[in-house]
Structures are given as C-alpha cells and as structure tokens.
C-alpha cells in the first residue's frame, strides 16, 4: 500500500537519470524478465488502489424523485466521513478484529503445539499425521464453509442431533456463538497448513543442540520452549502476518453463514459491507472508501505485529 506509489515517483525523477549515467549490463534481458510481471503487477495491484482512492472521492447523485440519469459528483472526504460515522462499519471492523485477536493465536498456538508434538521424540507415524492435518487445506474455503454450515444447521447437523439426544441444546448459530463457529471453520482449513510451515522450520534446527541440552538435564518441555520455539519465530511471524491478512478479508464463511444464520447480517464483515454498498446500493464511492480504510488498517496491523514480533527477538 505504502510502497506502491513510491516506485512511481522514484522511477520518474531519480532512477532514470541515474541509469543513463551508468548503464546497467544486460538491460534488455532484465527488462524482458521483469517487465511482464511488473506491468501486470501495476495493472492488478497498483492501478486498482489508485482507482479506489479516486473513486472514493465521488458519490452518485440524483435529484427530484431520483428517476433522472444519476451523475458522479466529487464529494471530497465525505465517503470517509460517512464510513467513520457509520455504526455498521465499526461493528464490521470490530468483528474481524475480535475474530483475529482470538482466532489467530488459537490457530497458531494449536499449530505450534501440534508441530512440537510431531517433532518430539515421542511421536510416531509423523508423516501420516502430517498428511491428515493438511487435508482440510485441499478443501476450497467456500466449500469448507458450506460443509460446516451443514454441520451447524439445526435441521441437518449430526452434532445438534447428538446434543438433543443427550438433552443438550446446541446452537452454533446464535448471535454470541456464530463468530466462533466461523473461527472454527477458518481454523479447520488453515491450522494444518500453518502447522506444516512451523514443522518445516522446527525440523531445520540442528539436532545436536537438543543432545547438548539433554546432557545438561533439560526436560523435553524445557527444550521445546527454550530452544525450539525461539528458533521458529520467523515462521510464526510469517504465518501470523498471513493469518492477519486473511482475517481482514474474511468473506467466505460469513457469506455462506448469512444464508442460514440470523445473527450474520448482510454487512457482517467489511468485505460484505463493501460488496453490498457496490452491488446492492450502487454506491461505489462508499465501497471504495471502506476498502481503502481497510487496506490502511491492514498495513498498520501488519507493521505493528511485525515490529512487536521482531523486537522481542533481541
């Protein structure tokens, strides 16, 4: 987000003259390898950002009864002001933040724990477990959401039926529960994937470090906590950033649950809010403003997370 406009400015003013002074070798080849990707990158990543920002400054306006041809009017920051004053926007943002604060640590904590268990001396059949854990990743997110929606739906759910037979009233779709029901779907799909990244990182730690610790009388838990965990921090940072980005664009689960759950409104998460503004209310300016605000939040959170995760490294 922040880096993208930078390259435009530099490329125009500073970089070109520098290149002219000191021509780079293999310029043709470099261009041939990088330009196709960069052109598409600009088209698919940079241009939509600029487009969003521009679009967010306009609003559709009609007059009288509203049946004349609507026109696009420059409104400055009005769409941003509207978003910041919109309780639905804050509610949607609050939901994904709450979701992220709970789901990301639970998922990564679970993945780390399972990875440590798989990496421990007590584990057997590691390759079998590894594949089983990874299996849900092969289920497309929206299909996973549909699958779990059926497992939650009172009419069809074997869990609800089982609860009934035990006299327990299970409700996965209640207003205070449904967010966590969705968190479970995300966790189910991505935990194994994150686990494998962490596990790969664990397995790259030279084994003699553990031998030395064992000779000093350290317990397995002690080794795991003091030797293994610090060394997989980069993997945790990576999976953490990925998960945060994923959380901010949470869409599949609420979109699917919206069909069956009263507690999931049409603007439950920011992506749904933006989509509704665009394709139900025909308010592309507002949709763009919401997207831009969310991108800023994404950038801030990633930077803060990265800073915190890396600082404690020292």
């Amino acid at each position, binding site marked *: 987000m922040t880096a993208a406009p930078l390259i435009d400015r530099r490329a125009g003013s500073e970089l070109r003259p520098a290149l002219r002074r000191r021509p780079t070798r293999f310029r043709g080849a470099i261009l041939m*390898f990088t330009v196709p990707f960069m052109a598409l990158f600009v088209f698919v990543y940079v241009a939509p950002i600029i487009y969003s920002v521009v679009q967010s400054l306009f609003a559709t306006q009609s007059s009288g009864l509203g049946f004349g041809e609507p026109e696009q009017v420059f409104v400055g920051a009005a769409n941003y002001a509207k978003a910041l004053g919109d309780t639905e926007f804050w509610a949607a943002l609050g939901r994904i933040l709450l979701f992220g604060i709970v789901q990301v640590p639970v998922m990564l904590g679970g993945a780390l724990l399972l990875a440590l268990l798989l990496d421990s001396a007590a584990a057997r059949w590691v390759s079998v477990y590894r594949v089983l854990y990874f299996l849900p*990743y092969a289920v497309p997110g929206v299909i996973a959401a549909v699958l779990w929606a059926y497992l939650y739906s009172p009419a069809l759910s074997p869990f609800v039926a089982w609860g009934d037979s035990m006299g327990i009233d299970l409700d996965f779709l209640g207003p205070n529960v449904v967010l966590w029901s969705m968190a479970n779907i995300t966790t189910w799909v991505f935990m194994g994937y994150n686990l494998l*990244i962490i596990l790969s990182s664990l397995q790259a730690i030279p084994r003699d470090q553990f031998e030395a610790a064992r000779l000093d009388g350290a317990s397995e838990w002690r080794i795991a906590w003091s030797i293994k965990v610090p060394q997989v921090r980069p993997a945790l940072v990576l999976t953490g950033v990925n998960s945060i980005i994923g959380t901010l664009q949470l869409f599949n689960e609420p979109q699917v649950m919206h069909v069956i759950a009263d507690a999931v409104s049409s603007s439950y998460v920011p992506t749904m809010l933006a989509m509704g503004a665009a394709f139900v209310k025909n308010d592309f300016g507002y949709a763009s403003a919401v997207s831009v605000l969310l991108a800023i939040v994404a950038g801030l959170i990633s930077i803060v997370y990265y800073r915190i995760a890396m600082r404690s490294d020292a």
Partner: protein
Amino acid sequence: MTATLPPKAAVDEGARRQRRRRDDAEPELTVSRGAAIATLGALTLAAVYFLIPIWWLIVSSTKSNTALFNSNGFWFSDLSLIDNVVDVFTRQNGLFSRWLLNSVLYAGVGGILATLLGVACGYAIAKYEFRGRGLLFGTILGGLLLPAALLTVPLYLMFSQIGLVNSVWAVIIPALVNPFAVYLGRVYAAASVPDELIEAARLDGAGELRIFFTIGLRLMSPALVTVFLFTFVSIWNNFFLPLIMLTDQSLYPVTLGLYNWYTATREANYNVVITGSLISVIPLVVAFLSLQRFWRAGLSAGSVKS
C-alpha cells in the same frame, strides 16, 4: 519485509531429507511410556477433529435427501451415491462438468503463466545487478501484505470499463500476479543456479533468454513445481474474484457453481451440493497426496496463504 520470510529454503531442503531418515528409524532416546501415549493421544485427537467433517461429507454423499434428515449423520443409511453423482452431473444440462473443466482451465493456465512470470522476475532480481532492485523486490513483497479481496471491487470496475468482465480473462489475469512466485524464484535462483554456470554459458555465446530457459529453469524446476502447485490451489480455491467478475454460469469455476447451488432456494438440494462438494475436493486431495514432496519443499521455503 524480506526478513519476515525464513531465508533458508535451500538449507531446509537438506534438513528435511535428514529428518525423513529419522522418521523411519527408532528415535534416538527412550521416551517414557506415559509421555508416548499422551503424545499419540493428543495427535490422534487432533486428527479426529480434522477428519470428522470429511468423514461426514463422505457418508452424506451416499445419502438421499430424505435420509440426510432421518439418519445418523456419521453412519451410512440408504446408498444413493450413484443417484447423487448422476444428479450432480446431469443437472442444468451437465453444467457441473463444465465447472470442473473451467476450474482446471483457470487454475492450470493461471498457474503456469503466474509461475513463469513470477519466477522470471525473481531470477532477474537474484542474478542481475541493477539500480532499484531492492525497491522492486520490496514493492512486490509489499503486495503480499495487501488483502487481495479489497482490490477486487475496483478491479471489477476497471475491467468493466475495458470490457473484460464476465470473461475467462477476468479470472485469469488477476491470478497471474503472484508475489510469492517472485520471492521463491529469487530464493531458488540464488541457491541453485551458480553464477559460474551462467558466465560459462555466456562465454559459449548463449543469450540471456536462452540461459534462463535452458539452464535457469531446469535448475529451478523444484521451485517451479512448488510455485505452480500453490498458485493452482489458490486459483482453484478462489471464490470472491469469480463471484464478483462472472455472471455467465457456464464460465463459473466449480467453487462458485456449488455456492450457486447452495443458495438456490427453489428446492431442497442438499444431496447435490454435498456430493458435488465431495467430487470437487477429490482432484486437489489426489494432487496433494501424490505431489507431497514438492509442496512440502515449498512450505519449508516459507510459502503464503492465498
């Protein structure tokens, strides 16, 4: 930015191999029986969590609509699997097979092109000195931090103005840009394509393109397969982009098609959605199981979600 990603892909590869030997052999130290049982118990419990929904999916795909409501969800009842499969493939004049084919097309073509474009760019960043190289790489990795879903609506508006919406390209073009491919291309090029080899080829009079295609790509083939696999999966799994971009049902990928059936409210069609979901998952599961060693190599190099 760079530092967020584990920088030692090549090293991991070796460690992985070393580790595999250990898996099969007896562990080096004796573990108490209690610890072993507790560990395996926890691992098995986790496996049950991951497998229950899949088991339910398999069992349910064999049931008729009525049986879905009247029987134990975790065990077989009437066997209507064949009927369900026939229903899935004949509904709407056999649109489902078209959807599957579309998914293969989008993920296949998108995966191949995204891999080539990204790896070529990563190769250039690794193997050539030029001004702005770091900035270029940083910008591309910055793309990883951007929630792609946020770009979809503006992208839709841009595409609609140039007439690309509701076409194959609307789904493929955005998928071609995969910053992770650049990252992995750079890491692998640095680790597995020796500079001396490139210099030697130059002395033999080979052009840069030829060197890339004959030497670079060959040496980086594990990276290519990994990047291809993960791009393939991310396109196959994508839902938001086709949802926004496509109107014509015959262009739908299988995810969107199934969602369309899921929200089709004129009839109770659980059996079709459930069986269709199972069928749509099978190709990826098979691909993942059979290509294990490739994606595991990719994961250890620090791959990314989506």
